[in-house]
Structures are given as structure tokens and as C-alpha cells.
């Protein structure tokens, strides 16, 4: 019995401590370094952050180079698919165009009425949006994290928590800022929880990512009147994001409230970052 236990001990020792002929480090040494790294990740100090930013910037740039051939193939296949769908899209767009033409006349009237009403209540209409455009360098929608890497960082005044828009639609927030790059946590990610407002019922809820293209509404009030097709906006609660940024439409499937996003997260190339009032403060 003791001999067997000794054998196991010797085998474990040999596997973990022996470096072999060509190995520079033993396994146990690297395991310890990994654990130290995980612990150090929790520590926020300036020199560490600078090192982290530099390291991440270098890896992102290398990743772009490595990913370029597969990205090229992906672009080419979507180009071919796009051409194949051209005729169908043309018919759909034609129909949509006719519908929009009808709507425009209605909207013009509403706009006129709106401006008259605003004048009436003396409201100052000033846009507070201070947007910065950036390009998506890497699109890492893994099963674990749905995120983008963008080509702007602290050099452009970007800070953690800022809202990220695709056109006018909310798609995520900044979670990691380096010197020349930042990571955007998409609204579809499991870790994403955004306070939202649902119109026209004016119900507040939390939009929870599910790791797929749709997100779910949680913490709705008990007696809510949310219906299929209602529009979801950021609520601005907690002061993290500006209120009223459109996100998507409600879809009710088997009593579950999911939200179909206005933006197709697979097709985003350029994004806008809501800098809030940072420029004005500077």
C-alpha cells in the first residue's frame, strides 16, 4: 500500500517538477505564476494598469494581423451571399420605400406640430450628445464574451462605462480602456445588465444579455402593460447612460419578454461612443 502511494507521489513530482530536456520552466512554477496573475488582476495600481494596457494593445494588434485572412474569407462569403440576396432585397426595399413615402407626409405634420408645442412650453432643445466615432478592430463574439475591440482608447478620452451606439441605437458599454484600444461589452453578453424604459407603458426594467442575439427583460413591475412591439430605450437610471437611446423592440414568446435589437451586432463596423460631458469639462 505504502509503495503504491510512494509511486503516485513520485509520478506527480516527476510530472510537475521535472523540466525535461527542452523545457525552461516546470509546470508547477507556471501554475503558480498563473495564480499570481489572477490575483494581481484584481489589484488596480497605475504601473500595473499601464503594463496591462500596453500588453493588451500589443496582443490586439497581433490578433488583427492573424485574424485578417479569416476575416477576408468571411467578408468574401458575405459579399457573395449579399449578391445572391440582391433581388429579394430589392423587392423588399421597394415595398418599404412605398410605405416610408406614405409615412413621411404624416411625420412632417407631426414634426411641425411638435415644434409648435415645444415653442409653446418654452423648452430649450439642446442635444447633449458628445459623440466620438471609432472603428471595430476585432469582433470577439465568443460563447463566453460578446465584445468588440475598438481602435480608440484613453488617447481619445474614452472612459469605462460610456455608452456605445451603432448609429443612434445603443449596443453596449465600454468595459476596458487601453491607450489605443478599448473593449466594448455588447448588450447581448451574459454580463450585460442595462436599466431600460419601455414605451409607451413607461415601465422600468433591466435588460439582461443572454449570450445570443436577443436580450431579455427582467424585473418588470408586477402590473405592467408591456406588449409585443413596444420600444425599449435606455432609462438613464443611475446616471450611467443618457436616457432615451433606442435599443430594440419587445417580443413576447411563451410569457418571456425578449428584446430584438435594432442593430445587427454581427454587421457593425463603425460605432459612436457617447462621451457625455467630458469634452465640455475639459
Amino acid at each position: 500500500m505504502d509503495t503504491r502511494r510512494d509511486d503516485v507521489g513520485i509520478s506527480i513530482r516527476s510530472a510537475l517538477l521535472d523540466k525535461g530536456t527542452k523545457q525552461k520552466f516546470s509546470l508547477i512554477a507556471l501554475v503558480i505564476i498563473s495564480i499570481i496573475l489572477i490575483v494581481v488582476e484584481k489589484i488596480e495600481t497605475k504601473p500595473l494598469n499601464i503594463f496591462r494596457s500596453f500588453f493588451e494593445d500589443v496582443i490586439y494588434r497581433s490578433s488583427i494581423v492573424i485574424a485578417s485572412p479569416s476575416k477576408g474569407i468571411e467578408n468574401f462569403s458575405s459579399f457573395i451571399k449579399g449578391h445572391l440576396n440582391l433581388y429579394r432585397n430589392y423587392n423588399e426595399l421597394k415595398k418599404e420605400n412605398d410605405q416610408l413615402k406614405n409615412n413621411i407626409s404624416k411625420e412632417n405634420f407631426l414634426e411641425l406640430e411638435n415644434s409648435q408645442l415645444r415653442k409653446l412650453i418654452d423648452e430649450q432643445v439642446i442635444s447633449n450628445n458628445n459623440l466620438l466615432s471609432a472603428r471595430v478592430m476585432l469582433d470577439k463574439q465568443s460563447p463566453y464574451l460578446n465584445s468588440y475591440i475598438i481602435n480608440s482608447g484613453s488617447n481619445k478620452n474614452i472612459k469605462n462605462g460610456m455608452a456605445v451606439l451603432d448609429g443612434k441605437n445603443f449596443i453596449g458599454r465600454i468595459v476596458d480602456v487601453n491607450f489605443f484600444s478599448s473593449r466594448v461589452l455588447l448588450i447581448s453578453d451574459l454580463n450585460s445588465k442595462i436599466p431600460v424604459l419601455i414605451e409607451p407603458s413607461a415601465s422600468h426594467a433591466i435588460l439582461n444579455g443572454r449570450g445570443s442575439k436577443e436580450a431579455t427583460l427582467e424585473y418588470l413591475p408586477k402590473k405592467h402593460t408591456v406588449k409585443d412591439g413596444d420600444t425599449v430605450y435606455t432609462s438613464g437610471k443611475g446616471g450611467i447612460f443618457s436616457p432615451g437611446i433606442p435599443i430594440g423592440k419587445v417580443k413576447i414568446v411563451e410569457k418571456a419578454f425578449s428584446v430584438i435589437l435594432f442593430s445587427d451586432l454581427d454587421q457593425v463596423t463603425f460605432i459612436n461612443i457617447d462621451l457625455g460631458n467630458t469634452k465640455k469639462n475639459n
Partner: protein
Amino acid sequence: MAYSGKQIKYKFFELLPVLLLFFISLNGNSIIDLKFFSINIHYILVYFWVLRQPDTLGYSFIFLSGVISDVVFGFPLGVNALSLLIIASVAAYVRVVTVRITLINDWISFIPALLLANFVYFSSLYFSDYSVDYLYLFKNSIFTFIFYPILWIIFRAILNFGKY
């Protein structure tokens, strides 16, 4: 010193696992995500080469590749590196205690490697306040295990091709 064709071929196949390892981590393809299932090719690659040809795939390369994966996926540094090193540790242990190389031996010993690595992975993410789809990871582990023999055959072919 001029290299002969055979030497170049040998060198290429010797470097192939390292190149694959870094390509996978930099490209963010450590998990092949298909419609109904997904496979963690990173785990299989590390397990196979540490088990069969440990001198080709250095532990420091495995560590570095794990750190790169962490940065690419946005995880805390060290999480992927640690789970890959756990896979490598089990493979190194199995290499010490086994004499005969068979697919069945390798395949069965891959189970504790997967279990341990995923346990470490879950625990490190749990303490880092990251939400993970555990059902997805469970399915991923099952399919990684199921697909091990296919990749074993491919990697073994690469290994033999480099030798002769």
C-alpha cells in the same frame, strides 16, 4: 549551414503545434462553435502534444498562449493559462504512469483532465464575478471529449509525418 528538404520538413512539423497553438489563441478560435455543438480545440491540442511529444510544445508556450486567449476574450489574465496548464499537468502525469500508447488510454485519461481544467476555469471566473453559461460549457466539455479521437488521429498523422 544549408538545410536539406528533409530537415526543413522535420523543422516545420516540429514547429507546427506551437504555430497552431498561437494561431488559435490570437485568432480567438480556441472554441470551434458550430450550430449544435462546440469543441475546445485548445484543450485537445495541449493534451495530445504534452502527452505524446512534450519537447515540441513547451510549457511556457502553453502559458503564454493561455494569457493571449485571456486578453483576446477579455477574461482576467491567467484564467485560461491556468486551465491549460492543468490539462498539461494531467497529460504529464499520464505520460509518466503509462507505458503503452493507445487511443483508449489517452481518451479515458482525458476525462479527469477536462474535469479538473473546467473546475479551475469555473472557480477562477466565479471569483472574478463573470457570468458564464454553465450549460454551454457542460455541452462543450462533452463534445470536446467525444471529438477527441478524431483530432487524436489527425495530430498523430502530423506527428508521424514529421518523423518519416
